[in-house]
């Protein structure tokens, strides 16, 4: 069907895609990986354009141009907006799969060529494609804060949502048995679109890393389903690579929160636990930027724990200035990265890399935790739940069991925070009330600017 040359380009493209991901294993070879990916993509597109089925190139050219015009500016977004961009691109991926599935159904319907196998594969493709489309749009909206980031819940939500999905799947099975039923096809599309929206409504911002990874996986699987529809092994391969990547990331994210998929998707985190021990009056010690600067200069080892607050305040460049000031004085500064800090996997690493902090100063949670007892100052910048000691011992805490960065074990702790309001999940953080914790209140960027200023003033004073 597809002639030899095209198949040869597909074969080469599949190999290049695998190499591309392989080279991503280390920052040193990673950019070569992008090159391999681009090469594979270019080969596959060229090979396809040679296919004899293609009669008219004008629509393809116009559409490709539109894609370039949208795509280039989308790659310029500030790195704090990368989670939104990623969610948006999952939406585009889902949309493409859904539309191609719809078009293939229409074409084969016209020609009377719908087999059970083709219809079944199309049903899978459009369910995954359209639910990824609307679900990812919702996720992007929440990340951009166009849609409220708080979980939106209503009674019997899970029963209702799963009911919709069950009807869609039921209609899909029915359609597979009897493919010539356009109404069933339309119903599946509508239900999948609706299910995508409803699936994301109850999910809160803190769960976004897992949800983005899951949607990534769905987008990949929808490409796999498209591969089965079009009997194209390159699509199956590339989709499977994307699907397994998304799945691995989701598993890592879930483990880092000690939660299961079902709990993330159907648990409506952040809504259930509004109760905190309000009885005991606890006091936190507050500190001025000058106090912070002073404490930091007396330290030998400092560990900085960044969180979503750093991204919101765009404070990564101030963090870098602080890093420079301190390393200049011979202080050992490292960064402790929790897997779910931020709004997508690896979010903090990218922000700190943007601020030109060398990547060998970024240390994963499991590697840094043993060192915290020997750390003089742990500086928490906009992180909250990932440093809450309640996760270790308080069985009533909703985050009990979640692995955390043990900042409370450091000799002293400084937490930069806008106010004493509990974080996203609405959980009180006992870290702030410890004897050796100092709170520096204010916008992370402003506080750090003042700290850096205090440090440099002192530096010139000598």
């Amino acid at each position, binding site marked *: 069907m597809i002639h030899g040359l095209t198949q040869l380009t597909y074969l080469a493209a599949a190999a290049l895609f*695998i190499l591309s991901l392989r080279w*991503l294993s280390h*920052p040193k070879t*990673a*950019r070569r990986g992008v090159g391999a990916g*681009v090469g*594979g*993509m270019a080969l*596959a*597109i060229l090979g*396809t*354009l040679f*296919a004899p*089925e293609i*009669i008219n190139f004008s*629509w*393809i050219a116009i*559409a*490709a141009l*539109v894609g370039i015009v*949208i*795509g280039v500016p*989308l790659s310029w977004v500030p790195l704090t907006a*990368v989670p939104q961009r*990623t969610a948006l691109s999952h939406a585009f*991926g889902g*949309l493409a799969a859904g*539309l*191609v599935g*719809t*078009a293939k159904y*229409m*074409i084969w319907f016209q020609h009377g060529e719908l*087999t059970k*196998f083709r219809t079944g594969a199309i049903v899978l493709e459009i369910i995954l494609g359209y639910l990824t489309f609307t679900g990812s749009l919702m996720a992007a909206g929440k990340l951009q804060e166009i849609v409220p980031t708080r979980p939106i819940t209503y009674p019997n939500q899970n029963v209702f949502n799963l009911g919709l999905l069950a009807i869609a799947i039921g209609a899909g099975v029915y359609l597979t048995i009897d493919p010539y039923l356009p109404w069933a096809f339309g119903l599946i599309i509508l239900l999948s679109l609706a299910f995508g929206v409803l699936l994301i409504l109850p999910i809160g911002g803190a769960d976004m890393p897992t949800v*983005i990874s899951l949607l*990534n996986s769905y*987008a990949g699987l929808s490409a796999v389903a498209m591969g*089965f529809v079009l*009997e*194209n092994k390159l*699509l*199956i391969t590339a*989709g*499977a*690579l994307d699907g*397994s*990547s*998304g799945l*691995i*990331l989701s598993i890592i994210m879930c483990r880092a929160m000690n939660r299961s998929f079902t709990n993330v998707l159907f648990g409506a985190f952040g809504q259930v636990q509004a109760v905190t021990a309000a009885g005991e009056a606890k006091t936190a010690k507050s500190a001025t930027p000058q106090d912070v600067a002073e404490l930091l200069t007396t330290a030998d080892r400092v560990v900085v724990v960044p969180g979503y607050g750093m991204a919101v305040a765009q404070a990564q460049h101030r963090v870098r200035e602080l890093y420079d000031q301190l390393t200049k004085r011979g202080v050992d500064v490292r960064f402790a990265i929790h*897997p779910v800090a931020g709004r997508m*996997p*690896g979010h903090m690493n990218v922000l700190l*890399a*943007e601020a*030109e902090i*060398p*990547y060998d100063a*970024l240390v994963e949670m499991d590697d840094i935790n043993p060192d915290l007892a020997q750390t003089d100052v742990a500086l928490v910048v906009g992180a909250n739940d990932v440093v809450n000691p309640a996760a270790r011992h308080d069985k009533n805490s909703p985050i009990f069991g979640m692995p955390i960065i043990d900042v409370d074990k450091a000799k002293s702790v400084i937490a930069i925070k806008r106010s004493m309001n509990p974080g996203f999940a609405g959980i009180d953080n006992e870290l702030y009330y410890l004897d050796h914790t100092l709170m520096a209140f204010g916008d992370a960027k402003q506080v750090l600017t003042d700290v850096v200023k205090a440090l440099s003033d002192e530096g010139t004073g000598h």
Partner: protein
Amino acid sequence: MAELDLWSMLFVFMLATFVGFQVIQNVSRLLHTPLMSLTNAISAIAIVGAILVAGEEESTATTILGAVAVAASMTNIVSGFLITDRMLKMFRERERKP
């Protein structure tokens, strides 16, 4: 014939999933954000299917569906590869003191 194809496709799917698991487990956690944007660009290989639908001239409706799918995939290819490269350029090692 069709049945044989189904089985070979399932084989490809199974093998590619295992390769994916192996390769991606080796990706440094530092690079998980670029990983996601790169796999995203790669899975925009869906453009291959979209091109076929858009170029077949079956009907106006399917041509439009295909063209929109080409545009969506192209957006992912262009922005995905560009932003991955932009991010990767930022990862630098500590300068070793002489």
